């Protein structure tokens, strides 16, 4: 009885502490976000030139036109004023107008693409986990076997292969030569609907999704293998074995659960990595997502778009970290909240 009450008090205290911890983490998130906006703005403005500089190729256009436009866009205002104008409109969810795409808002451009990037990232993440975890477990169990060496070789090849090269190779082999999957874009025909559209979109996801996913697969496979080997060597596993538990029970109930904890943290970080990795992959497969938009914006000095996407990236990574921390605190009772 006494012991039970004590446990209850402890778990209550734990709960209170956890809430405090989560609240504190969220509060920390706010100044961090503010700092990010300053950085995003400063970095964008630190780059020389604006969208109206650059190669004025067409001598038919009166140079004065550019000066009038620059004034109209507020590019001649002092930087703090520009920052304040930008921040106050961002606070209301308005990222301003694109400089490159005459007459379009940044929000509109992002909305038209963000889902494509989301699907691609999700697919790639699925690919990563579906391949990395089983192979990681398997090669950890058969350390130094032929399979383990093979997986390790594959992992390093995957890590060493740049996305654009892997992408072009995939297009060449699976699209141009074998004709199994489409090479470019998100759909074959705009007239498709329902299930056909779903399958068509899925087929377009395969090559970019695998290209993007395989790069991180290599890393995750190695993490998984290392974590399992480390956990396997710990005292509680020896205890479990000493109790006479079966190999399988030790592996799946004790080893795997503990080995997965660091993977969760990594996953929180992974979304940011996926989004930035998608920039190159999307370009190669001409998959119209945030990545292609971002590259285009950089090439054309479209600051409102660059800043908006940077902010989205930063916020995604911050939220990913936050979630990982919170989740970690929940699954691993050993974590202390201070």
């Amino acid at each position, binding site marked *: 009885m006494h012991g039970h009450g004590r446990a209850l008090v402890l778990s209550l205290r734990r709960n209170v502490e956890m809430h405090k911890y989560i609240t504190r983490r969220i509060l920390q998130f706010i100044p961090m976000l503010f700092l990010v906006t300053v950085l995003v703005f400063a970095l964008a403005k630190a780059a020389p030139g604006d969208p109206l500089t650059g190669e004025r190729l067409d001598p*038919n256009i009166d*140079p004065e036109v550019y000066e009038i436009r620059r004034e109209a866009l507020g590019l001649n205002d002092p930087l703090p004023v520009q920052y304040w104008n930008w921040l106050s409109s961002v606070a209301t969810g308005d990222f301003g107008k694109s400089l490159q795409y005459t*007459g379009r808002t940044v929000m509109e451009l992002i909305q038209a693409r963000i889902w494509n990037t989301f699907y691609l990232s999700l697919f790639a993440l699925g690919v990563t986990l579906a391949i990395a975890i089983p192979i990681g477990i398997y090669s950890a169990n058969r350390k130094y076997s032929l399979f383990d060496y093979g997986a390790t070789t594959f992992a390093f090849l995957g890590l060493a292969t740049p996305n654009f090269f892997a992408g072009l190779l995939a297009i060449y082999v699976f699209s141009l030569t074998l004709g199994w999957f489409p090479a470019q874009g998100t759909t074959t025909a705009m007239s498709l609907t329902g299930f056909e559209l779903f*399958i*068509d979109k899925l087929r377009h996801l*395969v090559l970019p999704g695998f290209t993007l996913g395989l790069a991180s697969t290599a890393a995750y496979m190695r993490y998984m293998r290392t974590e399992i080997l480390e956990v396997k060597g710990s005292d509680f596993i020896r205890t479990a074995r000493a109790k006479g538990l079966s190999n399988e029970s030790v592996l799946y109930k004790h080893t795997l659960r503990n080995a997965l904890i660091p993977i969760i943290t990594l996953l929180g970080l992974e979304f940011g990595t996926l989004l930035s990795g998608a920039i190159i992959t999307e370009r190669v497969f001409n998959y119209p997502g945030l990545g292609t938009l971002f590259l285009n914006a950089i090439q054309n000095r479209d600051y409102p778009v660059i800043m908006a996407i940077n902010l989205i990236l930063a916020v995604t990574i911050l939220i990913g970290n936050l979630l990982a921390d919170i989740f970690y605190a929940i699954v691993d009772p050993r974590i202390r909240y201070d």
Partner: protein
Amino acid sequence: MKSSKLWLVLVLALSFMLVLAACGDNNEEAGGNNDNNNEENNDNNNDSDSTERGTITAAMYSAPGHQFNPLFYSDAYEANILDFTHEALAKLDENLDWEPSLAESWDINDDFTEITFTLNEGVTWHDGEPFTADDVVFTYNVLMDEDYVAAGGVRTNYVADLETVEAIDPLTVKFTYTDTNINAIFDAAFIIVPEHIFGDVPILEMPDYSASRNAGEVIGTGPFQLTNMLEGERYELTAYDDYWQGAPGLAGITWRVIEQSIMPGLLENGEIDMIAEPNGVPAADFDTVDALEHITTYVTQDFGYQYMGFKLHHRTTEDVEAGVIDPDNWIENEKIADVRVRQAIVYAINRQALVDGLLHGMGTVLNANFPEASWAFDESAVNPYDYSPETAEELLDEAGYVDVTGDGFREDPDGNEWTLNFDYPTGNAVRERSAPIIVENLEEVGIRVDLRNPREAGPHFDLVEEDDHDWDMYLAGWSLSAADPDPSALWLSTAPYNYTRWNDPVSDELIRAGIQAPEAFDQDYRKQAYSDWAAHMSEQVPQVFLYSSDNIYAYNSAIQNVKHYPAGIYSDAHLWTLEQ
């Protein structure tokens, strides 16, 4: 065993992929059928006809910016759509002369201050409304409006000298200019937009207006209509069967955005049928594409060119800050003031080697700014400056630039160190690679060059313009359209784009002579004037013309009636048909 379960999962996943791969084949057929159905639905005039007509897929390397209002569009990718959906009063023919388009004929008054167009009868907009002189007046009034630039428009050059545009009757429109206008047809050949769509829209809101942006709402008079699009990916043009020159021979043209590096593969397996503007087939891929049996290629000289400019004068800091272009305030750049030095530099650069090595031979060495297709081009007027390091050395010796210190580099005539500063931008890979080669060429004849670190294009071109600095030579390029050859905008000493700050009264006089009324109404007179000017410029060398690259177009040979014009292959697209 657990491990066998793992394998099972892997095998299942793999088979899922294979099913997905396999089911695509059916799907593509299904998609194709759907396409046809759609076209039949869109096309309520003649169902049996539309099933016989084919659809082609054209490709470009970047997505249009989705501004489909000709008044405000800004990129070559949007132009790829607008070239098929919209028209102007006149267009360029295969000799770069003006031929009628929306206008059936025109008449210019004796002192070249008025041009009166008679419009074709029976021209209708995509929504069926008739095209009239009011649409022309409306379009030009927008260009002249003070809000036009504030709204984001840049094409004020079409109305620089325009006084009024008036509709005499529904099929007659008269342009009146403030002064003699040699380029009246060019100035009147801006793409016309419909008044009945945009008439009530405030100009400042026009770029945002749905008819400027949305597929199905973009209305022109052209043979095709933008009916459907998937942002960043796919733009579907459908034949406009009431087109005034007859129903188009194709049911539609689908534009796809693709990655450049896999273009040859997609052409080969038939996924795309055409690659044209703006970058066409890269020179490095020309042999691969040209070898494809079912592909026709067409190579033509680009009107733009790359050059190495001399900073003959620098502006003062005050003038740069105030944005003033006043040749009287300029400071002469002594280092390259001697014309023999500049001539020597052209002789010293192996320009043909740049074309052969960097452009895979797909380009032309230039000696004047007129493309070969232009009537102003006169090969005999200019010095070809064939590569000759010996001539270069002779000229330098003669000018007194000799090596007195024995370090292998020439000193100036006073015996002081003589180093030419050379700045170049990143961005254009061929141009970037040409810079160190040029330096090597110059060092071979004993000219010491300080090749600066390349800058990004933006800052580089800012500095080309804001030239209160120590530059002597720089790399740059012009992208020019096939309009009138009048060089005023780039070459008059007072022109803002006269980046070399060349201040030469003879040149100014010859340029003005080319547009001098009434003599300039005669093309032979103008041809002679431009030959004279080119000869003078060729001797004075205000800049080194490097090369113009080739535009390489490729399309499926099954597409019939494609016209190979110097300005491109989109002319008369309503005549294109697909051989079955």
